[in-house]
Structure formats: structure tokens, C-alpha cells
């Protein structure tokens, strides 16, 4: 109970730190600005086969991507970095510290996602036309896709973070997630990809997150350009739930294994390696 509360406090403190650290804010702003530029650029282009703005569709899909990218790559990356720098070992040296640490991380990353989604939604309303935000159903769908999406991707991030041997290889994680984004219909309708790539894209949660967001915030007629000409809510919830179950079953096992291996000597060895590289 104490550890849970401590975890929430930890998550909140680190979220505030992220939002007040110039470096972190600038990185976020640069990425947001880049995406925004592309969306604005394609604002008057239409999604093939419709009269709908490609920029608006992209903005909505990117909301789904935010969840997937942060849940997997950001969380996984943080875990490897903080394993290397000894944060994890400190948590291990404290009673129930690991529980608090993990809850904290989940809160920080979820908070980052929610803030990102909020900012993007506001930009969308101000600068883009065509968002279908008026109905309660839209918001309801947005909320369940967000929550189920976090549940599907955060454990996956924790799992991959524990498998990656060092912070140096964390870039691989970002790279593979980017690869998956490319085949997930985020920037262009997936139906324009070759069939086998469509299948590959549909295997990962990223595609379903984008689809879920589009189903929430785009007009119903836009379902026509999706696979099966449908928003496929049932499939979306099943696929995300399956990833969530798999992640939640495996992540604790792998995290425990990683935690068990941490010791002062292993952190010292990694520090030495890192210092040698710098020097």
C-alpha cells in the first residue's frame, strides 16, 4: 500500500521534472513541430478515394502512435537507461522499492502520453477541420482505446526494456518501433500497402491503436478506406487485449529476472565501460 502510494508520488514528481527540464521539453516540442509541419503540409491533400483531408487523418492516427511509441520505446528505453545508471539497484535496496519504481515509471509514461494526446487534440481542433468530436461516443471510444492501448503497450515496453542488454542498444528498440509504425497505416492508409505488409502491420498493437483513434475521431464515412470497410471495434479490442494479457503475463517474470541480476558490482562494471567509452 505504501509502495503503491510512493509509486504514484514518484510518477508525479518525475512527470513534473520532465515538464520542467528544458532538454526534455525541447525534444518533445521538436518532434511535435515536425509532425505538425507534415500534417499542415498535407492538410489540403485528400485521403485517396475520399474528399477527406490527409493531414487531419494523419493527426488522428498519430494520437494512436503516441500511445504505442511512448508505451514501448520510451518506457523500454527508460528501463535500460535506469538499469545502467543504478536507479534500479537503488529501488532494489529499499523495501518494496521495485514496486514503487515500476508504478512510478508507468505513471510518468502514461502522464506523458496523456499530455501529448491533449496537446495534439487541441492543435487539431484549432488548426484542422473535419474532426468528429461532438458526440459522447467519440470521447468514450477515445478513452477506451487510450486505456486499453496503454495496457497493451506498457507491459510490452517493460518486457523489451528488460531484454535489452544495455542502454546503448536501446536505440534498436526505437528503430524497430519506427519500422512497425511504417507498416501500421499511421501516415498513409494501410490498404495501400502490399498484402503481406498489411498482415505484418496488423500483428502489432500500433495499427490497432491508429485504427481505434480514427474510429473515435473521424466521421463514420471514413471507415470505407479501412480494411474490411469497417472500424472493426471487436477486432481492435481483442487484439489490444491479447497484447495486454501476453505482456502482463511475461513482463513481471522478466523484470524480476533483471532485478535479481542487479548488484553493486554489475552497475560498477557498466559504469566503468561507459566511462571508458567517454574517455
Amino acid at each position: 500500500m505504501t509502495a503503491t502510494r510512493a509509486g504514484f508520488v514518484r510518477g508525479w514528481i518525475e512527470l513534473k521534472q520532465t515538464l520542467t527540464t528544458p532538454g526534455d521539453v525541447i525534444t518533445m516540442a521538436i518532434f511535435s513541430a515536425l509532425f505538425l509541419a507534415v500534417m499542415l503540409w498535407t492538410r489540403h491533400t485528400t485521403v485517396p478515394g475520399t474528399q477527406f483531408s490527409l493531414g487531419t487523418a494523419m493527426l488522428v492516427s498519430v494520437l494512436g502512435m503516441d500511445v504505442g511509441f511512448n508505451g514501448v520505446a520510451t518506457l523500454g528505453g527508460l528501463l535500460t537507461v535506469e538499469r545502467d545508471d543504478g536507479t534500479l539497484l537503488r529501488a532494489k535496496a529499499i523495501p518494496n522499492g521495485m514496486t514503487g519504481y515500476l508504478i512510478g515509471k508507468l505513471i510518468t509514461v502514461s502522464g506523458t502520453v496523456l499530455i501529448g494526446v491533449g496537446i495534439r487534440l487541441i492543435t487539431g481542433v484549432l488548426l484542422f477541420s473535419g474532426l468528429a468530436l461532438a458526440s459522447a461516443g467519440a470521447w468514450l471510444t477515445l478513452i477506451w482505446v487510450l486505456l486499453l492501448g496503454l495496457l497493451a503497450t506498457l507491459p510490452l515496453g517493460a518486457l523489451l526494456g528488460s531484454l535489452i542488454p544495455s542502454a546503448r542498444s536501446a536505440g534498436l528498440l526505437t528503430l524497430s518501433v519506427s519500422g512497425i509504425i511504417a507498416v501500421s497505416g499511421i501516415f498513409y492508409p494501410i490498404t495501400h500497402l502490399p498484402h503481406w505488409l498489411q498482415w505484418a502491420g496488423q500483428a502489432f498493437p500500433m495499427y490497432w491503436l491508429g485504427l481505434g483513434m480514427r474510429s473515435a475521431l473521424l466521421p463514420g464515412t471514413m471507415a470505407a478506406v479501412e480494411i474490411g470497410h469497417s472500424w472493426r471495434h471487436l477486432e481492435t479490442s481483442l487484439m489490444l487485449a491479447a497484447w495486454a494479457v501476453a505482456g502482463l503475463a511475461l513482463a513481471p517474470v522478466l523484470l524480476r529476472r533483471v532485478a535479481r541480476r542487479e548488484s553493486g558490482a554489475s552497475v560498477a562494471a557498466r559504469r566503468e565501460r561507459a566511462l571508458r567509452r567517454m574517455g
Partner: protein
Amino acid sequence: MRYGKTDVLNGVTFTARRGEVVALLGPNGAGKTTTIEILEGFRIRSAGEVSVLGADPAHAGEAWRARIGIVLQSWRDHAKWQVRELLAHLGSYYAPYSTARVARPWDTDDLIAAVGLTEHAHKKVRRLSGGQRRRLDVAIGIVGRPELLFLDEPTAGFDPEARREFHDLVHKLADSENTTILLTTHDLDEAEKLADRILILAGGRVIADGSADELSRRMSTQAEVRWSRDGQRYVHSADDATGYVRELFRQYGESVQDLEVRRASLEDTYMALVREAESGAPARHLSAVA
């Protein structure tokens, strides 16, 4: 304890009593860190029996963990946290383990004052100097008012002043908090100043166990006697220094000047013991009943 097929620890047997400060000394690769990590529950041993505060560290739970303090070396962790914020947060995990006898955690401001970081309480961790950071490490290690504290090479990289302050803090913990402390060090002078008892580890074995005084007395029965007479300096190694000096006075009386009797220093003892252990000679088993 074994890595692959090589036993790295073999015959490490010792007991520490409540409130005792025990120093683990030994050359690099002697097994100091391995020993301490087994006791911390951070490393699983391949054989042998270990009991720390009445439990096997390999299977002990969180309540046990709350009674242990570990001083880890910070590197880049918690860089964005403020000193006070971090200590208050890490301390909060110990609150459920507070007892009538031991109030946990340590009051944050008192703790910051105890390690001398009051004027840096609101600094971010990454803005601290090396010495300040090390004091923060100690504060994190003792925030739960541990009954047993592990210090792995606590003063590596300290300047003499920081070292002195750190020694005072360790004395304070052992005396007023009755904390049992196990520390590893390379520094013989430090071991002699801090420890009630010194264990010397070499080649994965405990080759000596006793107070600094006991160790040097047992290792070397000879003492060096220096004096001068009529402007001439003399040096003599004697088994029975007291008897030798008595004889000296009887013979020369008041003409004996500048008398000095020096027992082997801890450094001499240490070097002799380690050399003996490393050459594979049958080790003299030194053990002192504390």
C-alpha cells in the same frame, strides 16, 4: 560462492555483533565485494550458510530489507531530483516498518543535517560535487535507520577532510544508533580508525580476524627498539621488547636517550599476511575471540 568452475570464496566464516564495526580488508579480487553482495542478498551463493539479522539474505523478505542499509555509489541516477525530495521519497518506503524501538524513516531534515548537506537540500543531485554526492549516498543508505549497514569502499575518491567527516559519521552511527556496520576498504589506516574488528580476505578466504591491535600483536612477536646513547643511534629487534628495554636501562641507566618501541604496524602485518596467503604457504590461522 562460485563463478563457472572456480570457487571465488571458500572458507569465509565470521560473525558480527550488534553495534560492531567490522572492516573487510584485502587485495583486489580477494572476494570482498562478492562477500558483501551475498550478505546484502544481491547475489546468490553456490554453497554455505549465511544468516543476516536472523534470516537467509537469499530468501529474506521486505521487512528484512527495511532493517538493512546499503550505501551504493551514485553515478547518474536520480540526477533531476532535489536532495530533500529524493530523501523524503526514499524514506517513505520505510514508514510501515517503524517500530516502538526504531522510528523509521529518519526525519528528512535531521538526516540532511547529519550528513552535512543542509545548504544543498534544494539542489538537484546532478549539481552536487563528488563529495556531496557521496554524502547523499550515505544518507540514502541510512534513511531507514538500519540495524545493519553495508559500506562498499565508502571513501574511495574522498579528500582528507571529507574522509575525516565521513569517519565521524560512521562513529556516530555505531555509537549513538547502535548500528552494526560492515565495510570494505583498501585503506588500512581507515580500517584501523573505524573498525572494532578487521577481517583480512585473500584468495577467497579469511586469513585473519581480530582487532587491529590483536592482529599486529599476533602476527609479529618482535618489536623494534630504537634509542641513542652518546650521540650514537641504535636499532634492535627483540622478541621480548619490555625485557630488552629493562636490561638496557639496567646497563646504561640515564645515558639511554630517544627511546622508541614500535610494534609492527597494521600495514606490515597486512602485507606479511597477504604475501603469505598468496604464496600458498600454509596460513597461520589468526583468530581472535572478540
